[in-house]
């Protein structure tokens, strides 16, 4: 009985998780909200090598700020173990924009404390980040040549020194000694051999160092996606590669996966190259490493697969893979062909959209309900007759600058639309660079993990001690399955209310104020990590139906 209570308690605690910064190539963590009476957006770029420095940008429209202080807080040592805060400095040419650096010394769950001091008192927020080494760098050729040159100089000089040490240097001025030249030559030869051995040893040592770094470097999980024909249609099988046990031996078992917005996996399938087919699906668990779903009727082609998962301690990550869809029965060849595929979604929240390809020269898929992608600042019609506009005052988008990315939705009459929560949030967005090197799943409050924020907050207040011991894996897994089944069995309204409550929201606050200005606007704060061409898919809900749309954006340096 005690075991059962512990399990239920732990799972309830873990369900509060709102981990939304699963990503590929987009490491920045964004927070939008209020610190005391100050409205701020924070963009944290964690270091790619640990130990290293995190770059923090703060944007605010609030007046009367005297200073902004930044501090790293590790879950393990709490705020008492953190050094004194560093000041973020106001950038000269951009009013309301501050920038600072925070040193992150150890791997693990951490957060950046942002403290605002000003006329309206003090306000503090915690932005959770994961401190992990992800980068593997090569030496730039210029530095390489300079160091090689100096190295060669040092080797030659040392050979010279040793040669002279055993010959000329031992002779007093005017003194004559026999065999000096021979001694010098032997000395130089011995020195050459010794130096070669030292250099060889040094090289091996360097390699060992690099290997050790590799071992501790963050390695994403791998998976294999495949398609299986069954009586009920095509099924996609998503098999997580168990070899992670070798590369990440201390990793928490997949049996400790926990649901995010009521789903164990949020998976996105995006057609490679043209990005004209997009699906947001939620595979169901077959066993701890195998998941399956009824494959949506997507056109043939190669697909990017991104699966966002969360495990027990709130570590959220993306498993990336590809999938080849062939011999799909649904015919997309003719625009007039209105054949409706007999697709039975394995999860009621599974959706897909077909849109125009990213490049004009790519062939448009022939299907009746094509979504035409919008551009920043231009009103775009949506399939149900409503329209969306990416609020943008004509400025071009730049990499590494934080944008609110605000979308206003209008109903068919041109009036602001009445949006409803979709899986407990007012909107879901996926940002992807055309080549697939950047992918991120965003929600309106930014992309930080509220679970980690909550845990560290409780650690600071002294309520939380050392990590809670997890119940046995099988027991945990079964309980999570039961919780998910329970959520699935709820009516849609109950489900949304339940999910929102878990995240500390209620329908009134989420729809009315704070993160959304009214019911028709949805904002996804985001900083594009690198220049390039991006497509952004937005998913919202209106009149009980999921509204899918997409926008294209060009991001410059």
């Amino acid at each position, binding site marked *: 009985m005690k075991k059962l209570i512990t399990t239920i308690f732990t799972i309830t605690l873990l369900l509060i998780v709102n981990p939304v910064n699963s990503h590929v190539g987009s490491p920045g963590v964004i927070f939008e909200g209020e610190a005391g009476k100050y409205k701020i957006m924070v963009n944290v770029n964690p270091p790619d*090598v*640990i*130990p*290293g420095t995190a770059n923090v940008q703060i944007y605010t429209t609030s007046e009367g700020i005297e200073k902004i202080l930044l*501090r*790293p*807080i*590790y879950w*393990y*040592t709490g705020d008492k*173990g*953190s*050094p*004194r805060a560093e000041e973020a400095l106001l950038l000269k040419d951009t009013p309301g924009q501050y920038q600072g650096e925070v*040193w992150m*010394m*150890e791997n693990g769950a951490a957060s950046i404390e942002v403290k605002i001091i000003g006329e309206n008192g003090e306000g503090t927020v915690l932005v959770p980040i994961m401190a992990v*080494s992800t*980068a593997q*760098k090569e*030496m730039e050729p210029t*530095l390489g040549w*300079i*160091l090689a040159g*100096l*190295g060669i*100089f*040092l080797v030659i*000089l*040392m050979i*010279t*020194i040793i040669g*002279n*040490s*055993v010959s*000329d*240097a*031992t*002779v*007093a*001025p*005017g*003194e004559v000694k026999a065999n000096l030249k021979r001694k010098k030559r032997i000395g130089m030869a011995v020195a050459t051999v010794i130096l070669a051995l030292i250099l060889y040893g*040094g090289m091996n*040592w*360097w390699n060992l*160092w*690099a290997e050790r*770094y590799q071992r501790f470097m963050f390695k994403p999980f791998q998976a294999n996606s495949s398609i299986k024909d069954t009586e009920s249609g095509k099924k996609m099988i998503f098999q997580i590669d168990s070899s992670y046990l070798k590369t990440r031996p201390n990793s928490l078992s997949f049996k400790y996966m926990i649901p995010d917005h009521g789903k164990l996996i949020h998976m996105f399938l995006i057609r490679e190259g043209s990005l004209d087919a997009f699906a947001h699906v939620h595979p169901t668990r077959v066993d701890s490493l195998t998941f399956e779903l009824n494959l949506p009727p997507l056109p043939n082609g190669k697909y990017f697969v991104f699966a966002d998962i969360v495990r027990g301690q709130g570590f959220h990550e993306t498993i990336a893979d590809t999938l080849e869809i062939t011999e799909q029965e649904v015919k997309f060849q003719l625009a007039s062909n209105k054949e409706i595929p007999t697709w039975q979604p394995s999860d009621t929240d599974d959706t897909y959209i077909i849109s125009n390809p990213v490049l004009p020269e790519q062939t448009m898929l022939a299907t009746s309900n094509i979504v035409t992608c919008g551009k920043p600042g231009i009103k775009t019609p949506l399939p149900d007759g409503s329209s969306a506009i990416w609020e943008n005052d004509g400025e071009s988008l730049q990499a590494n600058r934080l944008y609110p990315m605000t979308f206003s939705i209008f109903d068919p009459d041109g009036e602001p639309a009445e949006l409803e929560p979709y899986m407990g949030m007012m909107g879901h967005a996926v940002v992807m660079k055309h080549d697939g090197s950047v992918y991120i799943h965003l929600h309106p409050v930014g992309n930080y993990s509220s679970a980690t924020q909550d845990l560290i907050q409780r650690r600071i207040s002294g309520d939380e001690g050392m990590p809670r011991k997890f119940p046995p894996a099988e027991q945990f897994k079964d309980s999570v399955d039961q919780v998910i089944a329970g959520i699935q069995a709820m009516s849609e309204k109950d489900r949304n209310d339940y999910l929102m409550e878990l995240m500390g929201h209620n329908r009134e606050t989420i729809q009315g104020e704070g993160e959304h200005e009214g019911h028709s606007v949805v904002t996804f704060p985001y900083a594009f990590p690198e220049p390039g061409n991006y497509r952004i898919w937005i998913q919202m809900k209106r009149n009980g139906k999921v509204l899918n749309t997409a926008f294209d954006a060009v991001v410059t340096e």
Partner: protein
Amino acid sequence: MDLSINSPEATLKKSHSKAIAGNLGIPLFIYATAIASLSIIIGLIWDISWHTSVGRDGLLSPPHLFIYLGAVISGFFSGYQVLKTSFWGSREEKDKSVKFWGVFYGSLGGLFCIWGCFAMLTSAPFDDWWHNTYGLDVTILSPPHTVLALGMFMVQFGAMISVLALQNQEAPSHLTEKQKKLRNIILRGIFIFTAGIFLAMLFTISSEYQGRHDMHSVSFYIVGAIIYPLFLSTVACASKLKWAATYTAGVYMLILMLMVWILPLFPAEPLLGPIRNFITHYNAFEFPLLMVIPALAIDFIMQRKGHINNWLLALIIGPLFLAIHIAVQWPMGNFLMTPLAQTWVFGQESWYFGADPDWQYRFAFADWMESSGWELVKGLLIAAVIAILSTRLGLKWGTWMKNIKR
């Protein structure tokens, strides 16, 4: 109005003092390299203290500046000496130098200093790249730090060799007996000074195995047997002073003790999380090993038995040194764990800011730290053999150094 700058008296005084310095035949670069050597060891110990107290540093932190200042001083003065002798030097000056690469003339010590300077300067961009690639440093020994350490060793060795060459040359004939005596005292003093710094450097580099928690473990004595008999017998052999090893050990102890006493007087605050030990002042570096006691034995034997076969000499000095070293450091290890040692004089309350101050073995030996039984006997026998070999090598090295004349 001050006219004294150009007054005949002032000019006369100036040229007179220059004549005295010049007459002693000790070039300026000798003093410069000795100061460079000191600057490096101060910078290095301060830097370690900085890492255990403040944590965050950059390429141009004050301790790094001390270290690089040492590199620049030694490189500049030695480089100047080489260029001056090569292109503007007299025949006599060239005869006292080593010729290399066809055109250059310089002292051997100067060449070591130049090598050290370049190695140290090379390590800076290398280390910077290393931090960006593998993370900011948390260890003393990494490849770029090794390049830096080799550079530091060479600068300090160069300082020793430079002064030794002068000591081994005939004093200039125009010197009076009194001047010759003064010259000898200065040269021998500088040699001991630079040798003491070199010993401090050896200790610092191996300090990961030389702390109070290591003093009951065989690894402490094996590392000690590799380093100390080698270096102290070298010095005893090369110097013309009677108690050279003892003085050298004394200089090493004095430098380390001064660093223990001075650094904690200054405020310091950890700037990196996570912080477990909250300190307000610098942590001291290690209290020195009581090296003068075993060093006395080396000098004593060298005086009594210096003439015998070097292998026999090594057979006596090596085990004797080790025995005294154990007899001194083993109880010293116990003492350093007591509250008496947790004072300003011994600085043992110093504790890395990231380490748990309530660790149960902060002032105690854990089982795994102490060698005992057969492991201890075997380890000490190995250490004794190493001490013999290292003494023998030291005597060889010292004999070579005694012969350096340029």
